[in-house]
């Protein structure tokens, strides 16, 4: 296992960088926010055409099958410009879940993901914190199928997704359902999120599901969901690392250009040392991200520690990066007209999604024996 970017990965990053700088800069997020729009189907189609939607889809299902480290590379670049897309929900989480099921239905679903035809959202949270084990939404056996009743919140990409992966409680455990988002009894309410991205609260009232809608086995959701969650958490960590890098780049640029008391503020040693410390944190975070990608690709059964380490560290670093970013910019950093606020808000949402710092810190501790 080499903790160094391969040539292919570097090329992928450069290519992504080029595309995103023109197709999805921060100003694109601003436009969408101002227009009250949280999904750009055309942009996602372009990403699909570049192989991003199918980054984890096997080649025989039309995917590019580049692996988890590559998915992280793409997510990281997206983070730098806060590109809006259902990449993590669809291309990472849903694709990983579907991959671990080897039936024709799953293969078709993967093909639709790779082509960009189908987008997904994962409906797990029911309380204010990520806690799959606490799932209460009930899938009651009825005839050959199930009837779903309950509520989900913070379903990221849930207002626009074509399909939902719904975690539900069944008689002897948890079961994951893969159902279209327009099925009768599903009521989606878009949340007005601070990061201007898509998330929804969803109510399930007597929603009918068949055995075919179950992903994996009944009562065994975690067999399918665990790898999907880990892949998603790693990609989200990568996105947040990219976000930190984007905010940091903006901040260092400002330090070099902004003058106060007659000199560039970047000459003030107190700011220099804080900026240097922040850079150190971003470097260390980058190692954790790279390691998580490698572990998912090379030793997926044992990737839990690496993934939680990456998510915890990326969350802490992103928080520092945006706080320092705003503070070092001064008043202008607080204005809506400047982009730094977008980074701060996205960092906060990313901090909560798929488990916050405390959640992953506890997982690191457990994996390390304390």
């Amino acid at each position, binding site marked *: 296992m080499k903790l160094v970017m391969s040539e292919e990965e570097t090329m992928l990053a450069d290519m992504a960088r080029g595309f995103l700088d023109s197709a999805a800069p921060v100003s694109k997020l601003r436009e969408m926010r101002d227009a009250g729009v949280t999904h750009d189907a055309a942009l996602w189609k372009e990403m699909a055409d570049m192989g991003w939607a199918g980054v984890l889809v096997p080649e025989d299902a039309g995917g590019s099958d580049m692996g988890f480290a590559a998915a992280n590379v793409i997510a990281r670049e997206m983070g730098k410009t806060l590109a809006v897309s259902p990449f993590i929900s669809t291309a990472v989480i849903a694709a990983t879940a579907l991959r671990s099921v080897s039936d024709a239905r799953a293969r078709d679903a993967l093909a639709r993901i790779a082509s960009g035809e189908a987008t997904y959202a994962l409906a797990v949270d029911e309380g204010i914190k990520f806690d799959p084990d606490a799932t209460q939404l009930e899938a009651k056996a009825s005839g050959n199928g199930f009837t779903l009743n309950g509520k989900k919140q*913070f379903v990221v990409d849930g207002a626009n997704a074509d399909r939902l992966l719904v975690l539900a409680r069944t008689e002897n455990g948890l079961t994951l359902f893969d159902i279209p988002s327009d099925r009768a009894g599903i009521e989606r309410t878009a949340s007005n999120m*601070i990061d201007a991205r898509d998330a929804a609260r969803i109510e399930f009232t007597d929603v009918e599901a068949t055995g075919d809608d179950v992903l994996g086995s009944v009562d065994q959701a975690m067999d399918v969901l665990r790898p999907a969650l880990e892949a998603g958490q790693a990609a989200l960590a990568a996105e947040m690392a990219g976000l930190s890098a984007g905010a940091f780049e903006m901040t260092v640029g400002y330090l070099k250009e902004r003058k106060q008391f007659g000199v560039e503020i970047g000459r003030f040693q107190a700011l220099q040392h804080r900026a240097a410390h922040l850079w150190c944190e971003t470097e260390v975070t980058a190692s954790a991200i790279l390691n998580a990608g490698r572990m998912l690709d090379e030793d997926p059964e044992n990737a839990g520690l690496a993934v939680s380490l990456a998510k915890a560290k990326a969350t802490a670093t992103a928080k520092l990066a945006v*706080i320092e970013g705003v503070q070092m910019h001064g008043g202008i950093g607080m204005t809506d007209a400047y982009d730094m606020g977008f980074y701060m808000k996205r960092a906060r949402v990313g901090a909560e999604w798929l488990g*916050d*710092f405390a959640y992953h810190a506890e997982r690191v501790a457990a994996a390390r024996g304390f």
Partner: protein
Amino acid sequence: MSATTTEAFRLELRDWLEANCPEEMRDGGVTEDSICWGGKDWVFTSEAQKVWLERCAAKGYTVPTWPKEYGGAGLSRDEEKIFLQEMGRINARPPLQSFGIWMLGPALLHFGTHEQKLHYLPPIARGEIRWCQGYSEPNAGSDLANVQTRGEDKGDHWLVNGQKIWTSYADKADWIFALVRTDRDAPKHKGISFLLCDMEQAGVETRPIKMISGISPFCETFFTDAVIPKDQIVGEENKGWDVAKYLLTHEREMISGGGQGLAGGRAIGAVLSDTMEEMDATLRADAMRCEIDSLAIGLTLERYKDQAEAGQGAGDASAMLKYMGTELNKQRHELMMSAGGSDALEWDGPLGNRAGDWLRTKANSIEGGTSEVMLSIVSRRVLGLPA
């Protein structure tokens, strides 16, 4: 003040509050919406708010420590403590909050003429005139003395041209107090005057700035040949920087104390428990540290006030309060966001404006002098380290 007098004052006040504070005004009023700012265009949110302001103004209780002749109640520091305790006891809202009370008032009391005090202070105390502050300018940032707004001497008035930024609620204010350069040849700190300006006149325009929290508490204010009569100066001509410095001290104490006040005195751990059934180790540890700092900073504010009363000025140490208080408030709101989880990530979600309040706190360590400027002040003026 003897213990007997103290007790008498307390009982009298308690009766008065019981009889005069409307029930609706006894909710602590810790949200942005509940504030009564006053001013010509003020629309009371309820009859109770109006009545409460009028009754307090009549007793001088909007500005309890100001002299009676200027609209205050002339309370001593001990009486003020009792006043705050009794207000707190029934959870009464402050009847009026304004930059006039916090900032211009103290500056006028210190630097103004008797005529100016009589003219400007009572309308502030009654909530009739709302003031805003015109210090910062574009590109000046932390270098506050870098004032480019220019006042040309026209005999009986100055003709003012220039631009101010971060003028809090200027779009809702009636008058502005501003730093204006009245001598362009003098050294940076020596050519500034502190002027009072009616914003209704021609030549004063204001434009709200939208912040990351989604609201616009700040504005840009433009002066184009605005006329300011010569008697609308506080302190001497070209000595406005002295007034500004004095006032900054007040502002810093206000911002630092504001942080505490917003939480309505509840322990941060209790606030977090509202949304978290059981705090995880990380949050609990952070909450305890935050609470310890909160209490210690609160006590320091009290100590400085007691010292001031005892004639021991805090001086530049107010920079410390501003730094510590605002950084703490930022931390406090970070914890509240953590405890709110995904409910806190929506604008106007189940936790109201928690996210907006959190984002708003990020300005605390910038406005009124950045944390970095505060630390430099402490370093130089308190510790005597070389510049």
